[in-house]
């Protein structure tokens, strides 16, 4: 199982775009109003820093995964604790994304389909790609899906230039100020920060040295695209409406029409979104299985898939109503996962790891 530099780029790009476009726009517009694009640009800069730090940290021990080198850096018990913190994040987010995927699909495409069917179908796909392809299969998939996403967003933007209302940008800054803009930054940042999975992914690269650069480029490309989409939504719907809709990008797509005969493009947008969500889920799915197997010293990590899938299925179906995924995104993800998993631990790993390396080199 080897990943090339190009695959890392497309992996980062593909897994970030879809869900970010769907889920971060509305909360950011709520906080930062028409200055949401500033929030997105800030988040882009901070997000690339996160991925840079985490891939640099992983580069200290090339060929070893987070599960292995966190023990080398922090010792056995602290290392295991750190791994468990990440496993909690991965396990919970898989269930959360599965649930969100199923609910959104039900809302817009399949209103009478039972939820469990959608969760199960997606899980079967995940099992298939992870079991037979592993991380390499996911990487190759993203090489195909990534360009499709890029192209379709690009086409949508071009088709809608004529309905842009540039006045929606104004007034810049004076309605909001620093605090609301920073508050808005948190939402996209907590999604961009998911790129800390580079801590694991780097060990699968054939040329780990290329990792940091490719990953940073991938995240930069993804955040550019998402920021562009945010500006696009702002120009079509304006800040007030965008903040009240749950998925403003979806409504903006359905608003696009070309000469009255190209209409209702939202279904295409949903298909593109599905590609991205699939990559994101399968990445987390692989990491959760592989990480658990390494932690528990199970030789064949593929056998674990059956156990974990059953767990994910139950977890995804057990949320009693849609507000739980909303609460998950707005509490655990922002107040715990962002500061601890995405900022704190990667920095610590990098810092302590480099110190340790220097210390070892001196002796």
């Amino acid at each position, binding site marked *: 199982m080897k990943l090339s530099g190009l695959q890392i780029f497309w992996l980062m790009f593909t897994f970030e775009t879809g869900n970010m476009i769907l889920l971060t726009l509305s909360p950011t517009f709520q906080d930062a109003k028409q200055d949401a694009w500033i929030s997105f640009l800030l988040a882009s800069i901070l997000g690339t820093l996160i991925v840079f730090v985490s891939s640099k940290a992983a580069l200290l021990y090339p060929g070893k995964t987070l599960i292995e080198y966190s023990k080398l850096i922090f010792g056995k018990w602290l290392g295991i604790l750190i791994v468990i913190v990440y496993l909690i994040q991965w396990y919970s987010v898989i269930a959360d994304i599965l649930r969100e995927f199923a609910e959104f699909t039900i809302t817009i495409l399949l209103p009478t389909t039972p939820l469990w069917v959608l969760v199960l179908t997606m899980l079967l796909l995940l099992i298939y790609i992870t079991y037979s392809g592993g991380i390499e299969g996911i990487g190759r998939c993203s090489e195909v899906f990534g360009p499709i996403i890029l192209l379709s967003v690009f086409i949508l933007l071009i088709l809608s230039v004529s*309905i842009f209302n540039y*006045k929606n940008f104004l*007034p810049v800054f*004076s309605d909001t100020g620093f605090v609301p803009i920073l508050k808005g930054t948190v939402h996209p940042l907590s999604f961009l920060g998911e790129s800390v999975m580079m801590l694991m992914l780097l060990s699968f690269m054939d040329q780990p040295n290329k990792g940091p650069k490719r990953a940073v480029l991938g995240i930069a490309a993804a955040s550019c695209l998402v920021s562009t989409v945010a500006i696009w939504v702002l120009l079509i*719907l304006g800040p007030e*409406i965008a903040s009240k809709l749950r998925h403003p990008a979806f409504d903006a797509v359905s*608003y696009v029409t070309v000469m009255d005969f190209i209409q209702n493009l939202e279904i295409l947008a949903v298909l593109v979104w599905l590609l991205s969500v699939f990559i994101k889920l399968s990445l987390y799915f692989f990491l959760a299985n592989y990480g658990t197997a390494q932690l528990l010293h199970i030789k064949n990590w593929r056998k674990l898939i059956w156990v974990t899938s059953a767990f994910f299925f139950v977890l995804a179906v057990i949320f009693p109503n849609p507000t739980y995924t909303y609460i998950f995104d707005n509490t655990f993800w922002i107040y715990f996962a962002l500061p601890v998993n995405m900022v704190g631990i990667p920095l610590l790993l990098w810092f302590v790891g480099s110190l340790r390396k220097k210390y070892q080199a001196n002796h």
Partner: protein
Amino acid sequence: MRKIILRLGLCLSVLFISGCWDRKELNEQALWIGSGWDVAKNDGVELSGQIVIPSNIQTQGGGGGLMQKGFFTISAKGKNLSDALQNIQTKLSREAFSGQRRVIIFGEQFARRGLKRQLDNSQRRADVSLRSDVFVIKGSTAKKALSVSNPLEKPPIAATLGEHKISGGRGNTAYLSLLMAATSDGLRPSIPVLEFSSSLDGEKKGNENSANPPLLRLAGVAIFDKNLKMQGLLNMEENRHMLWVMGILQNLTISFKKKDMNASLTLNKLSSKIEPHISKNQQITFTVTLKGEGSLKENNSGLDVQSPNNLKRLEKEFEKISQKQVQQTVTKVQKKYGLDIFGLGEVIHRKKPNQWKSLKYDWDKRFPEADIIVKTDIKIKELGMDGPSLLFKESEIKK
């Protein structure tokens, strides 16, 4: 063994491919293309819908015989839209499908009662597009408006959309602009108005197959306050002026008539620039500069427009008449309704955001007191095929 399992799995997956839970056959759907809203007892609503009859909508006629109507109208009462829709469904054999809904009409009484607690359904549902046209029907109910057929358009509601588009208005962006105005502090909503009319002006209205069939005509614009209650009406000419000030008018024909001449100019490039100014004693002044470029359509005089001086003179006349009319409209809106349908408050919001913070709370009081100066700047870019009118003799032509 493995192959057998694979094959079985493949066969089983067929069950999922068909999407059996959510099949939506076209012939099990009722295509709902226009919605109407009216008042009902106990603060309820009466929802009406124009529904396409698919078998009568084909364009290739089968020879002679009477034209079949391409639609029918259906309505029912309820507490709100969903409740009324459930009641409609009791007499509709197919499931109402709103994905193609393009027009919403409010009865005047309904518009005066207020829209605020009614419209959520359209945004909550994923299949209804934000791209809709929206109208108020003057002095009548929406269900009657939806029952009027049109000689040109098979689903007749398409005719209102066409009228709206061709008159240079907001067209199918009207609904989104209503939502935007409803959420904004410095812009009050305005919705185009329809009225009952007939093909021939001044003649008695006949039935739909007669020479004078009933029609719906665009009749101006309805003004709403910030609670989304309709407060009054502007006529079609004032509607155009309003749209010009807002900068969204697409085309406009200005005509003037003096005792020895009359002329018309069609502007197809219109723009508006608004400069707010707030003096030390808090007096607000807006300078509205309206620009227009277009082609000369009529010049019933001996004026030879090929001479630059004459063209200047014409341009001045057009500027004068349009300035006067727009100024009248603006003053009327200020004095009679006091509601900022032009979005001048939003201009302050954008250009002087700090001052806006204190103004926005009582904008409805401050707007009528503001000075609004309208200036027009009109350029004739095309002359057409003749210089002076051909009906004038050499001696009458002014070079």
